[in-house]
C-alpha cells in the first residue's frame, strides 16, 4: 500500500483536475493559475539543483527558460501551424498531440546545451565570479534573441495558440493543463531521483567541501556539468510550457527579473529542499495572483514580505529539510521513488 | 582577584555548552584550562571576550567579573579597549590579505598612546624576531608557526595586559613550540602579563602554568597548582596518556 500511495494520489489528482476543467467547473483563470504554479515548480526546483544542492549562485536561470521557450515555440509553429514567416505547417496539425512532448524534450536538450555557457566556466570559477557569468549569460541569450529578426526580435513571437487549438480539434481536452501536469510530475520525479542517489549526492559533497569531494574520487567537473545541464534543461522545459500556455513570448519576459523570481522561490523554500521549492513555488504564484489588484505596488509588497520573512526564518521555509524530515510520520503513508 | 567566572552557563542555540563553571585568575598569573576537545575550553574564552553569536555563545546564567565588575553587557571591542583583555584565537585568524606590519598596526586601532605603541612594536619584534624579518610580507604567505606568532604578537599590540591564548602550539613543529612558550614565559616574567592558556598538550601546559583547571564536558572536575595536577592520577590517566 505504501508503495502505491503516491502513484494513486498523482493519478487521482490528475483525473480530478482534468475532469473539473473538462466540465468547466474551474474557470480558465483558475486553470491558468494552476498551470503557472506547475511551471514555477519546475522553474524553481530546477534552480535548486545548482543553487541549493550544489551551492553555486546562478542568477541567470531565465536565460535557459528563454532558450526552451523559443526553441519549442519555433518548432511547434514550424511543424503544426500556419505562420506568416514559416508558411504552411510541415506536418498535419492534428499530429501536434504526439509532436508536442517531443518538442518539449528538444527544448530540454537545447536549454541543456545552452547551460554549457555557464557549466564550462564553472570548472575554474566559483562563487561570486560564477554568479556574474550567469548574469552575463542571461543577457547574452536575451540580446541574441532580440537581434534575430526572423523570430520577431524585440517584438516577440506568437502562433503557439493555434497548435493548442489543433490538439483540441482532435480530442477536446484541456491539453495544456495536461501537459503542464505531466511534465511537472516528471521533473519532480527526476530531480528527486537524482539528488537521492549516491551519484547525485556528489553535488552536495561539492557544496560542502569541494576539495574533499575531488580527493574522495568525485569527478567534480563532470558532476558540475551534469548538474548545470540538468538544471538548465529543466528550465527549458518550464520555458516551453510557459510559451505554450501564454501563446506569446518576447525576450523581455525572460530578463533578470524573471531570474530573480526563481531565486526567490529557491531561497524562500530553503536551499537544498525539494519540497521547500515546490511549496515556495505554489505560495509565490498564489501571492502574485492575490496581489494582482495592487498593480505596481505588488512589486513593493512582495519584496517587503520576503525581507520580513527572512528576518524570522533566515534559512527559508524548510531549511534544507524535506517534508518527511519534519513530519516523520508521513513516511508511514508513502514511499516516493 | 582580576578575573572571576561565577557559575557560568552558556548555550549555543538550544544546546548547553557550559554547565556552570567557576574559576578565577589573579594578576600576574599563568592559569591553564585543560580538557578534551569539545569540553568547552574555547567556548569559555569566547564567552569572556564576548564574541557575539553565531560564533559566540549566549550566556544563560552566572556572571563574569573583571576587577569586581560584571562585563556581560560589553561589546567585544570594548573588552579589548577598556579592559585590556586580548584573545589569540584558535586557528590563528590572522588577516591574510594584510602584511605582517599592517596586522600589528591594525591591532593598535583604538590606542592613542603613541610612545607605548612604539615600545610594544619593539617588544613583539624582540620576542618574535621572525616577524621582523617578514614584516613586509603578505601574512597569508607565512608558515603556520609564524602565523601563530603573529596572532600572539597582534594580541600584545592591542595594549593588553591580560592574554587569552587558545591552543598556541596547534600545528607547530617542536622547535617552534618551545620558542613560542619561551617568549610567553618572558612576557609573563618581565612584563607582568597575566595569561589564561588553553592547550591540548596538557603536559606542556602544566609545566608552563602556575595553576590549572581541568574541564570535562562543560564542567570543572579538578583544580589545583600545576604540580598537584601533574601528579594527580586522574589527570595522568586521561590527559597525559600515562
Amino acid at each position: 500500500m505504501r508503495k502505491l500511495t503516491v502513484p494513486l494520489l498523482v493519478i487521482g489528482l490528475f483525473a480530478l483536475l482534468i475532469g473539473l476543467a473538462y466540465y468547466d467547473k474551474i474557470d480558465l483563470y483558475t486553470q491558468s493559475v494552476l498551470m503557472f504554479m506547475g511551471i514555477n515548480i519546475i522553474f524553481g526546483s530546477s534552480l535548486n539543483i545548482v543553487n541549493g544542492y550544489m551551492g553555486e549562485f546562478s542568477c541567470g536561470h531565465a536565460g535557459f527558460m528563454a532558450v526552451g521557450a523559443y526553441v519549442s515555440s519555433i518548432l511547434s509553429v514550424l511543424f503544426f501551424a500556419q505562420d506568416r514567416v514559416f508558411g504552411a505547417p510541415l506536418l498535419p496539425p492534428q499530429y501536434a498531440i504526439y509532436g508536442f512532448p517531443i518538442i518539449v524534450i528538444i527544448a530540454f536538450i537545447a536549454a541543456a546545451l545552452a547551460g554549457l555557457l555557464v557549466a564550462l566556466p564553472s570548472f575554474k570559477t566559483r562563487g561570486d565570479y560564477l554568479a556574474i557569468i550567469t548574469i552575463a549569460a542571461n543577457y547574452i541569450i536575451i540580446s541574441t534573441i532580440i537581434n534575430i529578426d526572423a523570430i520577431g526580435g524585440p517584438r516577440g513571437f506568437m502562433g503557439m495558440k493555434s497548435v493548442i487549438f489543433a490538439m483540441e480539434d482532435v480530442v477536446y481536452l484541456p491539453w495544456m493543463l495536461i501537459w503542464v501536469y505531466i511534465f511537472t510530475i516528471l521533473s519532480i520525479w527526476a530531480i528527486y531521483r537524482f539528488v537521492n542517489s549516491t551519484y547525485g549526492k556528489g553535488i552536495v559533497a561539492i557544496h560542502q567541501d569541494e576539495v574533499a569531494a575531488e580527493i574522495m574520487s568525485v569527478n567534480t567537473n563532470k558532476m558540475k556539468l551534469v548538474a548545470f545541464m540538468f538544471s538548465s534543461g529543466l528550465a527549458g522545459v518550464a520555458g516551453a510550457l510557459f510559451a505554450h500556455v501564454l501563446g506569446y513570448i518576447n525576450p523581455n519576459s525572460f530578463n533578470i527579473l524573471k531570474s530573480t523570481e526563481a531565486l526567490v522561490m529557491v531561497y524562500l523554500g530553503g536551499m537544498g529542499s525539494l519540497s521547500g521549492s515546490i511549496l515556495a513555488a505554489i505560495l509565490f504564484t498564489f501571492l502574485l495572483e492575490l496581489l494582482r489588484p495592487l498593480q505596481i505596488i505588488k512589486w513593493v509588497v512582495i519584496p517587503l514580505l520576503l525581507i520580513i520573512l527572512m528576518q524570522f526564518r533566515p534559512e527559508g521555509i524548510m531549511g534544507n529539510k524535506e517534508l518527511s524530515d519534519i513530519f516523520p510520520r508521513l513516511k508511514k503513508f508513502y514511499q516516493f521513488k | 582577584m582580576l578575573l572571576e567566572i561565577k557559575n557560568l552557563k552558556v548555550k549555543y542555540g538550544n544546546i548547553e555548552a557550559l554547565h556552570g563553571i567557576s574559576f578565577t585568575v589573579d594578576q600576574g598569573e599563568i592559569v591553564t584550562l585543560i580538557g578534551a576537545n569539545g569540553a568547552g575550553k574555547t567556548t569559555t574564552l569566547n564567552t569572556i571576550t564576548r564574541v557575539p553569536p553565531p560564533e559566540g555563545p549566549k550566556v544563560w546564567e552566572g556572571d563574569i567579573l573583571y576587577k569586581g565588575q560584571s562585563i556581560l553587557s560589553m561589546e567585544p571591542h570594548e573588552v579589548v579597549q577598556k579592559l585590556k583583555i586580548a584573545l589569540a584565537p584558535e586557528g590563528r585568524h590572522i588577516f591574510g590579505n594584510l602584511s605582517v606590519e599592517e596586522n600589528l598596526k591594525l591591532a593598535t586601532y583604538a590606542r592613542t598612546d603613541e610612545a607605548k605603541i612604539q615600545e610594544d612594536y619593539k617588544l613583539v619584534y624582540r620576542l618574535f624576531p621572525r616577524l621582523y624579518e617578514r614584516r613586509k610580507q603578505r601574512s597569508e604567505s607565512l608558515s603556520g608557526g609564524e602565523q601563530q606568532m603573529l596572532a600572539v604578537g597582534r594580541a600584545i599590540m592591542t595594549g593588553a595586559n591580560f592574554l587569552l591564548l587558545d591552543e598556541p602550539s596547534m600545528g607547530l613543529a617542536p622547535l617552534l613550540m618551545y620558542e613560542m612558550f619561551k617568549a610567553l614565559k618572558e612576557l609573563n616574567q618581565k612584563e607582568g602579563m597575566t595569561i589564561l592558556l588553553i592547550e591540548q598538550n596538557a603536559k606542556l601546559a602544566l609545566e608552563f602554568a602556575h595553576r590549572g583547571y581541568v574541564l570535562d564536558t562543560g564542567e570543572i572536575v579538578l583544580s589545583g597548582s600545576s604540580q598537584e595536577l601533574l601528579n594527580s592520577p586522574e589527570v595522568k590517566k586521561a590527559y597525559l596518556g600515562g
Partner: protein
Amino acid sequence: MALLEIKGLTQYFGGLCALSDFNITLEEQEMVALIGPNGAGKTTVFNLVSGFYTPSKGEIIFNGQNIAGLKPHKVTSLGIARTFQNIRLWHEMSVLDNIKIAQHYNLGYGLKDLFLRTKRYFLNEQRIEKEALRILEVMNLREYAQERPSNLPYGLQRKVEIARALSVHPKLLLLDEPAAGLNSADVKELIQLIKWIYDEFKITIWMIEHQMTVVMNLCQRIKVIDFGVTIAEGTPEEIQKNPKVIKAYLGDGTI
C-alpha cells in the same frame, strides 16, 4: 617493484620554490613518516602525490604508472587515499553518506540507470550501502552511521575521516597530521588504530606528523625535510640523535 617512487619532484609557486628535487621510494607494506618544520613543504608533497598540483618537474610513479598531473579523483581511483590536516568531512550529511559518496570511483551505474531506476541501479546502490556499513562496522563506527560528523567529538571525526579514506580500498594511505588537535589520551588510541589498520588492511602508510610519540611508535623510516630540501633520512633512533634535525626541528625540549 616499489609501490611508490618519486624522482626529482620539484614545485614552484610563482617564483617561490616550495619543494626541490624530492626523492623517496616506498615499498609495499611500509610505514614511513615525513617530518620537518612548518612551511617545509610537507603538505606540498602530499598535494602533489594526490593530484592537487601538477608538479613543475619530476615523476611520481605509482604501481608502475606515472601519475604526476593526473586529476585527484583519478589518483584516488588508482589506489591512493588521504586525510587532511584540518578534518575535511562533509559536515551536513550523515556519516554513512560520507562513506557512500567516497564510492564515486566505483559506482557501477550511470545517469540512465539513475533516472530509470534500473535493476543495475538498485544492485549497485545496495552494494555501496553494504560496503559502507561494513567499513563502519570494522572501524567500530556503526552506531554513528546516522549522525552528522559535526556532532561527533573531534577524535571520532578523525576516525571517520580515516574510515572514509579506507573505504576506497587504497594501496597507499596518506595521513596528514592525524594527531593534530588530539590530546595525549586520544593520541594513544590513534597509535593503536593506525597500527591495527596497518596490520589488518596490509597497506602502505605514509604520514606527516609533528608529535614524535606517534612517529617513533609507528614508523620504520623517517624522512626530514626543510625548505623543500631533504636534510636527513633514517630509522627513528637515528633521526632523534641527528644534530641537524635537532637544530632545525626537534629543539632542546626546554621551555
